[in-house]
C-alpha cells in the first residue's frame, strides 16, 4: 500500500501537470486562432479568396485586370491544393516578400506591397487561423493573362519599380493610436490598392500614396484620402469617420461601389479601438490640405440651360429623399450639399450612383439600410448629365459639368 501510494503520487502529479499544460496550450492556440481570424478580417482575405456562394477561402474568384483574368488561390489547409503543407515561415515569406515558398513570383493582384508591413506576430496568428478552417480540395485555376503578361519574370520589373519590402516602422513623433491606424491602413487594410493612382504598369506609386485614382476594370473612382476636395477626411469628426467605415453610413455620406464590400466583409468586424485608430490616421492624412476651393467650370445657374434642366429633373426624382436644398435626411438619405464625393474632378461616381443606385452594405450597425433607386431605365443620357451637373454645382458645390456622352459611356460599366 505504502509503496503503491508513493509511486502513484508523482505519477498523478505529473499527469495532472501535463493535463494542465496541454489545456493551457489549447487555450493559447484558440486565442491565437481568434486573433488570426480578427486580423484576417482586417486584411479582407475573404473578398478575393472566397467565391460568392463558394467554400470559404477555397479561391477561384475571377478578377478582371487590364492584363487578363487572374484567379485567386485556395488558402484552406488542404495539403494538395491549398496551403496545408506550408509552415508559418512560408506564410510570412509570402506576406512579406511576395514570393511563393519555392521562390516563385506572385502577381501583385495579391497586395503584398501592403502586407509586407504586417508584423511576424500578426502573420503567425493569421496563419494559425487559416490552418483552423475546413480544408477544401479545389485545385487553383491557372491565370488567363495575355502575352506578355503571362510571363512571371515581368513581375521582377514591377517589383523594382513599386515594391518596397519591410514591416511597418512606427513614427515616434505620433501617438500610439495614430501608429496603430497607420499600420492597419497601410498594412492589412491595403487601402492603397485602390486609393492610390494606378499607372499604366499596374503599380501604385509610393510618392502618390492615397491620392486616389480610377479603379481599372471596375470603373469606380477611388477618391484621394489626402485631399479634402475628395474623400479627404480632414474636416470630418472622428465619430463620422468611424460611422462611415464601420456602419457604412454617416451624417456626411455613405459608402458605395467597391467600398461597400470593404465595410461589409472587413471593417464592420473591427473593434472600437482599431476603427478609431484608423479614423485618426485617415483624418490626419487630410488635415492641412485646403478645402475645396477649385474654381468651378460650371457657368452661373441663370445662364445655364443644363443646370435649370438638371434642377427640374432633381425636383422630380431626387428631392423627395435628398431634399430640395440637398441636405438629405442623414444618415438614411445622404446629403448632397457639401458632399465631397459628388464634387470630385472625376464625375464617374455620381454618374454611376444615378445610373445604378445602390444600397449601403448591411452591417451590424446598420442592418437594414435604405437604398437608392437605379435611374438607368428612367432617365435619358441628357437627363443624367443635367441632374449630375446640377448636384455638382448647386448649394455651393463646386464640381464641373458632365456631358451626356460621359453619362452614356458609364451605362455599360460593369456591375460586378
Amino acid at each position, binding site marked *: 500500500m505504502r509503496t503503491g501510494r508513493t509511486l502513484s503520487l508523482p505519477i498523478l502529479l505529473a499527469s495532472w501537470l501535463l493535463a494542465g499544460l496541454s489545456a493551457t496550450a489549447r487555450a493559447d492556440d484558440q486565442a491565437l486562432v481568434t486573433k488570426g481570424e480578427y486580423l484576417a478580417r482586417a486584411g479582407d482575405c475573404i473578398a478575393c479568396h472566397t467565391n460568392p456562394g463558394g467554400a470559404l477561402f477555397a479561391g477561384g474568384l475571377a478578377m478582371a485586370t487590364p492584363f487578363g483574368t487572374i484567379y485567386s488561390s485556395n488558402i484552406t489547409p488542404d495539403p494538395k491544393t491549398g496551403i496545408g503543407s506550408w509552415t508559418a515561415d512560408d506564410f510570412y515569406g509570402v506576406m512579406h516578400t511576395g514570393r511563393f515558398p519555392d521562390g516563385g513570383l506572385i502577381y501583385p493582384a495579391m497586395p503584398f506591397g501592403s502586407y509586407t508591413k504586417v508584423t511576424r506576430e500578426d502573420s503567425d496568428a493569421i496563419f494559425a487561423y487559416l490552418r483552423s478552417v475546413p480544408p477544401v480540395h479545389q485545385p487553383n485555376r491557372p491565370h488567363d493573362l495575355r502575352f506578355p503578361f503571362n510571363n512571371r519574370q515581368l513581375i521582377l520589373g514591377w517589383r523594382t519599380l513599386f515594391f518596397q519590402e519591410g514591416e511597418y516602422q512606427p513614427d515616434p513623433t505620433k501617438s500610439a493610436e495614430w501608429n496603430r491606424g497607420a499600420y492597419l491602413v497601410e498594412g492589412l487594410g491595403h487601402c492603397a490598392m485602390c486609393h492610390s493612382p494606378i499607372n499604366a504598369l499596374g503599380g501604385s506609386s509610393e510618392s502618390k500614396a492615397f491620392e486616389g485614382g480610377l479603379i481599372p476594370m471596375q470603373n469606380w473612382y477611388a477618391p484621394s484620402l489626402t485631399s479634402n476636395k475628395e474623400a479627404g477626411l480632414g474636416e470630418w469628426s472622428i465619430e463620422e469617420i468611424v460611422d462611415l467605415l464601420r456602419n457604412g453610413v454617416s451624417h456626411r455620406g455613405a459608402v458605395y461601389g467597391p467600398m*461597400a464590400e470593404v465595410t461589409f466583409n472587413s471593417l464592420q468586424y473591427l473593434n472600437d479601438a482599431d476603427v478609431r485608430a484608423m479614423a485618426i490616421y485617415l483624418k490626419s492624412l487630410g488635415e492641412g490640405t485646403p478645402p475645396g476651393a477649385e474654381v468651378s467650370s460650371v457657368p452661373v445657374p441663370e445662364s445655364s440651360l443644363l443646370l435649370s434642366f438638371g434642377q427640374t429633373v432633381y425636383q422630380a426624382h431626387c428631392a423627395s429623399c435628398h431634399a430640395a436644398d440637398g441636405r438629405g*435626411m442623414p444618415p438614411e438619405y445622404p446629403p448632397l450639399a457639401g458632399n465631397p464625393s459628388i464634387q470630385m474632378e472625376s464625375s464617374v461616381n455620381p454618374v454611376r450612383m444615378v445610373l445604378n443606385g445602390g*444600397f449601403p452594405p448591411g452591417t451590424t450597425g446598420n442592418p437594414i*439600410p435604405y437604398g437608392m433607386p*437605379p*435611374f438607368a*431605365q428612367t432617365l435619358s443620357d441628357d437627363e443624367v448629365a443635367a441632374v449630375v451637373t446640377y448636384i455638382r454645382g448647386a448649394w455651393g458645390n463646386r464640381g464641373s459639368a458632365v456631358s451626356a456622352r460621359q453619362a452614356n459611356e458609364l451605362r455599360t460599366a460593369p*456591375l*460586378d
Partner: protein
Amino acid sequence: MPLRTRDNLKRLDHPGRALRYPARWSGCVILLAVLMYFPAVVALAQPTEHAPDTMEARLRACEPCHGRQGEGTNNDYFPRLAGKPAGYLMNQLVAFRDGRRRYPPMNYLLEYQSHSYLQKIAEYFAALRPPPAQQTATDVGSAVLARGRSLVTDGDQARGVPACSGCHGPKLTGMEPGIPGLVGLHKSYISAQLGAFRYGTRTAAKPDCMQLVAASLTESDVTAVAAWLASLAIPADPSPVPKGTLQMPLGCGSEPN
C-alpha cells in the same frame, strides 16, 4: 413653431387662448428675422429630417422597376412582386445575391445584404396587395390564346407537358411557400424566364422542375403560354393557396413536401 395657419385659426376660435397668440406671433417674427440674417444658424439649429422608419422608405430602390408597392410597371421585362409567396421571393433574392440567378443590376443591389434583411424584403412584398397595374393589350390572335389557355389549364398529356395550374394553382396565384403566382406578369417577362429555364441560365434547387417543364415546351408553346397568362386579369384576392393544397405532378426542390 406654430406656423401652420389652419391650426392657428382654429385655436384663435377659442377665446381663452386667443390672448396668448399676439405675443407668440411677434416672437416668431423676431425669430424669423434672426434666422433670415443667419442662414448658417438655420443649418446648425434645425436638425435635419429623418427618413420614415418603414420598409417602403428603405426599398425605394425597387420602385423604378417593380412599382412603389411591388405592383409592377409597364416595362416588359420586370415582374410584379406583390403577393408572391415569401418563400419564392426569398429564394430569388438569395439567388440574385449569390449570383446563381444572373441579372447584373439585381446582383449589384443585393450583393452586400444579410440573410435576415432579404427575409424582411421577401415578407414585405409578399404581404402587399396593391391594385393591379394596367394590363397591356394582347397582340396575338385568338388561336394562339386558345392554345395558351389549353396548355396552362390542361397541359399536353401526349407530350408529357404538365398544366401550369397543377402547381401554380387553379387561379394561377401560386402556392405557399415556394411557387409564384403567374398572373399580373408581362408576356416578354414570362417567355424570357421560360427560355432561361430551358437553357439553364435560370436554375432552382434540385430537382429543378421548371427546367424539365420548360425543356418540354416548343417555342410556339412558350409564345402561347406567355400570351395567355399575360392576358389574365389579377383576381380580387391574389393570395397564393396554402402549402400542400395541390398534389403536384412532379417534384420541385423549391417546394419541399
